[in-house]
């Protein structure tokens, strides 16, 4: 009888809370959006399924959840909580990113800096709402619109908020095609949106090989805290561009990044058990995240308009919106919005420059916050 009792106490039906039920619905919504709407499916399917895993009610005495010492999920989550997975993902991204657009458009790089204003204004907002500085820094990085960077900094500064911050970051990244267009239309005139930009100059193979070395030394010197993320990004890139290490670049951008993405997604999802996730803090984090995406978008656009005051070859200010990172969705949104005004205007290549610059910009931002706020 005792055994039967022990077993029934062990089933989930008894212990399922309303919070768990809500989270399970959220997980199903994530998976549905990923499959039906094709929103970042490579991340939302694993995270969504992870949410299901994390919200089956736990059984006392068994090590199952990511927070139980010795559980399988805790070993997988170790790569998240110690910040190991994000640099490995950056390695793979570097091995698939082509910086040519940026190399041929050096002035557009600054738009990738301007959009990071979203990070720091969100930090101020989070401080004003009463978060402590470490938490505020981690929340601010949502404005960087870069999932791995957000997870890395949260792991270092505010591990207890990691789940909320990661899910906010990926949610809004998935929603970039919904969030950005209204802001872009609001802040630009039709005439500005029609601006055509001149074809960028040729980039040689040598420049593409030397760039990662030079860029790494600059970023490493100016913000050593960004060294791991940017180092891995540019290491992956030199594996790709050197042409003599093709097989390594190939594995980095296929098997390696896939394995890390699977493990990161499922364990980040599984860390959102209702008692950790359904808190007033999470709601504030989601609100701040939405604001930060809007500020970042506006920052990029307005800075492009500001640069136009001094430039002869005008920049189409839509391109500034791509500075938020969220590669390559933000650049595609720019292209689509531009083509709505003039179907013969191809902005994609121009938008890729601030877009990849935005990745570097938010990694620098994360490095600064880590350096200044680390305890």
């Amino acid at each position, binding site marked *: 009888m005792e055994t039967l009792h022990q077993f029934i106490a062990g089933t989930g039906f008894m212990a399922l809370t309303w919070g768990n039920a809500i989270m399970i619905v959220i997980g199903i919504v994530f998976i549905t959006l990923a499959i039906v709407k094709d929103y970042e499916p490579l991340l939302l399917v694993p995270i969504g399924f992870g949410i299901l895993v994390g919200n089956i009610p736990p059984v006392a005495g068994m090590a199952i959840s990511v927070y139980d010492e010795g559980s399988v999920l805790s070993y997988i989550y170790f790569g998240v909580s110690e910040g190991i997975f994000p640099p490995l993902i950056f390695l793979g991204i570097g091995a698939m990113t082509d910086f040519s657009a940026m190399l041929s458009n050096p002035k557009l790089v600054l738009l990738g800096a301007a959009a990071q204003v979203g990070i720091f204004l969100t930090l101020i907002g989070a401080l004003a709402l009463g978060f402590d500085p470490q938490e505020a820094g981690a929340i601010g990085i949502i404005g960087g619109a870069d999932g791995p960077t957000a997870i890395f900094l949260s792991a270092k500064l505010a591990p207890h908020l990691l789940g909320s911050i990661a899910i906010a970051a990926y949610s809004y990244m998935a929603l970039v095609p919904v969030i950005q267009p209204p802001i872009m239309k609001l802040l630009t005139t039709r005439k500005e949106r029609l601006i055509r930009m001149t074809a960028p100059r040729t980039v040689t193979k040598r420049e593409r090989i030397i760039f990662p070395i030079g860029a790494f030394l*600059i970023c490493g010197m100016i913000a050593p805290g960004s060294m791991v993320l940017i180092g891995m990004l540019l290491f992956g890139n030199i594996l790709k561009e050197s042409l003599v290490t093709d097989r390594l670049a190939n594995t980095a951008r296929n098997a390696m990044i896939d394995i890390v993405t699977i493990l990161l997604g499922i364990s980040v999802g599984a860390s959102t058990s209702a008692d950790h996730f359904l808190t007033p803090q999470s709601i504030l984090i989601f609100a701040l995240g939405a604001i930060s995406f809007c500020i970042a978008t506006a920052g990029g656009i307005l800075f492009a308009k500001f640069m136009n005051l001094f430039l002869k070859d005008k920049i189409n200010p839509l391109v500034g919106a791509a500075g938020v990172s969220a590669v390559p969705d933000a650049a595609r949104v720019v292209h689509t919005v531009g083509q709505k005004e003039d179907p013969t205007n191809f902005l994609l290549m121009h938008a890729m420059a601030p877009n990849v610059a935005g990745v570097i*910009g938010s990694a620098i*931002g994360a490095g600064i916050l880590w350096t200044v706020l680390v305890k």
Partner: protein
Amino acid sequence: MINLNWQNVIDSNGITITLIGMLIVFSGLLLISTFIIILPHALAVFDRVVAGRQPQPVSAKVTSNDPTEQEIMAAISLVVHMELERCGGDFQRITMKRRAPTGTFWNSTGTTRSLSNRSPHA
């Protein structure tokens, strides 16, 4: 209601962090931007210095005189590249300085098998 506590912002150096942070982000990307601008010029200078020491590389000029051929090459390689990508993206890129699969340490050891196959000992 939500209560905004500006004192916390000031106590935590929020403003300073923001100003310095944006300053550094801009400095970093400005330096990178400058580096990118200078790079092709520096390479040109380097080439001129090297060329000064060596006999004129005539053939190189010929190639660069004919951009059409280059573009055709680029178009072909793009098509090939995309075809390969279509097959799962797991292929090696076709590189300019194409090294035989034997070129690297790992590949070579693998290929010694082919070599031995070529002999009648299979």
